[in-house]
């Protein structure tokens, strides 16, 4: 890759390729971190407790703990980037028409951004402490 771009077209190609390399590395690094984050999450919420018992009180008791908020923030951020970039790979592979591909990506990124903001709000914009002491007596509380 020693050849420098001579046209805008080539520059675009080079630019895109470098970003793809960044994403390639990111998918591997975030994947390794997500193995621990997601396995831990599944252990807390589906093995340690019966997922059929999960209700408002359970989630409020979890979100009243700071470490859960921090843990979930990493999970949310990394899983979103890893997952949405994975979905983008599928869009690039299976949607051939440029116009359709463009709009599919616009739709995907828009939906993902809205859902990401919703997730951050759930974790940080509300306090669940007022649920009181009773909540901490609950399983997983």
């Amino acid at each position: 890759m020693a050849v420098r771009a001579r046209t805008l077209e080539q520059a675009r190609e080079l630019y895109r390729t470098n970003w793809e390399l960044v994403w390639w590395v990111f998918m591997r690094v975030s994947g390794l971190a997500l193995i621990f984050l997601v396995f831990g999450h599944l252990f807390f919420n589906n093995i340690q407790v019966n997922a059929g018992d999960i209700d408002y009180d359970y989630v409020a008791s979890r979100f009243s703990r700071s470490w859960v908020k921090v843990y979930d923030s990493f999970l949310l951020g990394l899983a979103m980037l890893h997952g949405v970039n994975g979905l983008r790979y599928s869009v690039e592979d299976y949607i051939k028409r440029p116009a359709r591909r463009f709009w599919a990506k616009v739709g995907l990124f828009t939906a993902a951004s809205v859902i990401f903001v919703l997730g951050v709000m759930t974790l940080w914009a509300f306090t669940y402490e007022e649920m009181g002491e009773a909540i901490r007596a609950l399983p997983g509380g």
Partner: protein
Amino acid sequence: MYRGREGQWAFVLHRLSGVAIALYLLLHVVDISLVMYGPDGPFDRFLAFYHKWPFRIGLILVMAGVAYHALNGLRIIVMDFSSWGVRYQRILWYLVLSLTTLIGIPVLFKVVPEILAGS
């Protein structure tokens, strides 16, 4: 050489499980966000619906997908960074499938009775 052999099935399963987990994640963040409506909001009613057995089986599939995707992801990383990994990629794939099953069995023993007892 590639088409129809283990490598292709490994890829197809990795794609399928990846897309399924990603779509689950998008839905999951939205459903958990319902707790923002507070204790008297729609969260518990919504979850009662989620606790029905078809969804519980869906959760088992999500967990199976996570286990396969994570282990096969490790296999991909090993193949990217060592010629050893490429040479033994077929054996590594069978190892991935075995470990997925091995993790899955105790999970089934834990979760299936819960589903049978509920709903």
